[in-house]
């Protein structure tokens, strides 16, 4: 059976949806971790710059 409007059969659609959700679950925490580390590094740089100015 084919979902003609998508060019996918049911099997392909199920695997594609699962792949998309798992891709989000894989990427989202990595991006969040990278952002947390970037924020910490930025805060540390600001603190260092303040120390130098003083």
């Amino acid at each position, binding site marked *: 059976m084919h979902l003609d409007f998508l060019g996918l059969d*049911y099997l392909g659609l*199920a695997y594609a949806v699962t792949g998309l959700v798992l891709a989000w679950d894989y990427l989202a925490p990595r991006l969040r971790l990278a952002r*947390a580390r970037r924020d910490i590094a930025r805060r540390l740089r600001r603190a260092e710059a303040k120390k130098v100015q003083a």
Partner: protein
Amino acid sequence: MNSLLLWFNQTGSPPNFDRFCARWAPWAWALAFASLAIGVYGALFAVPADAKQGENFRILYLHVPAAWMSLFIYVVMAVQAFIALVWRIKACEILAMACAPVGAAFTLITLATGSIWGRPTWGTWWEWDPRLTSELVLLFIYFGVMGLHAAIEDRRAAARAAGFLALIGMVNVPIVHFAVNWWNTLHQGATIKLVGPSTIDASMLWPLIAMVVGTKAWFIGSLLQRARAMNLEQEAGKDWVRGVADAS
């Protein structure tokens, strides 16, 4: 203090918790990718098509492990929330809240793949059947926990409130599990049983086992990755995070 409690206390401190997550997450991901690759290969290419369902039965290699994970993760989240509420252990608060998006992802996969399988098999995308409806309620509870946690500014108060909601939501877990026994439903009963004979042929079982191992390992990898990010966000002002930021 016995060695297990000592290990638990030591690992619960934020710097050690960060090191623990950083150390074990890559191993969990590696196991997850290897097991899922084997499972998907087996599901798509190795096992024969089902006599009645044809090729569409291969969807169940995604649906069944995801459904098990949706309940398993909820129980893990509730246990962590209980420990966090009773003993005020920060690492458990973080772990409980890190469970919610992973659980929601697996619940979404369960509902989506079930719906896609149901269309050619049952002739409908959706039915307000007790099993399907209670699984949808489970997704809403996951969303509720995530939403409540995001809505409160104080991170620890947010984790306590959302943890309390997670504990209340536990009432839905046995409803999802036993829905097929308690009511007349369109959804079939358990095919694989821990006690008693299973009704799946052995030649069709091994990819399912690989998928079950893969989804468990995926959960651990994603949980540790999310917990590490949340731990760093909460500890951003502390001295020990200097090393973590420098390492980036």
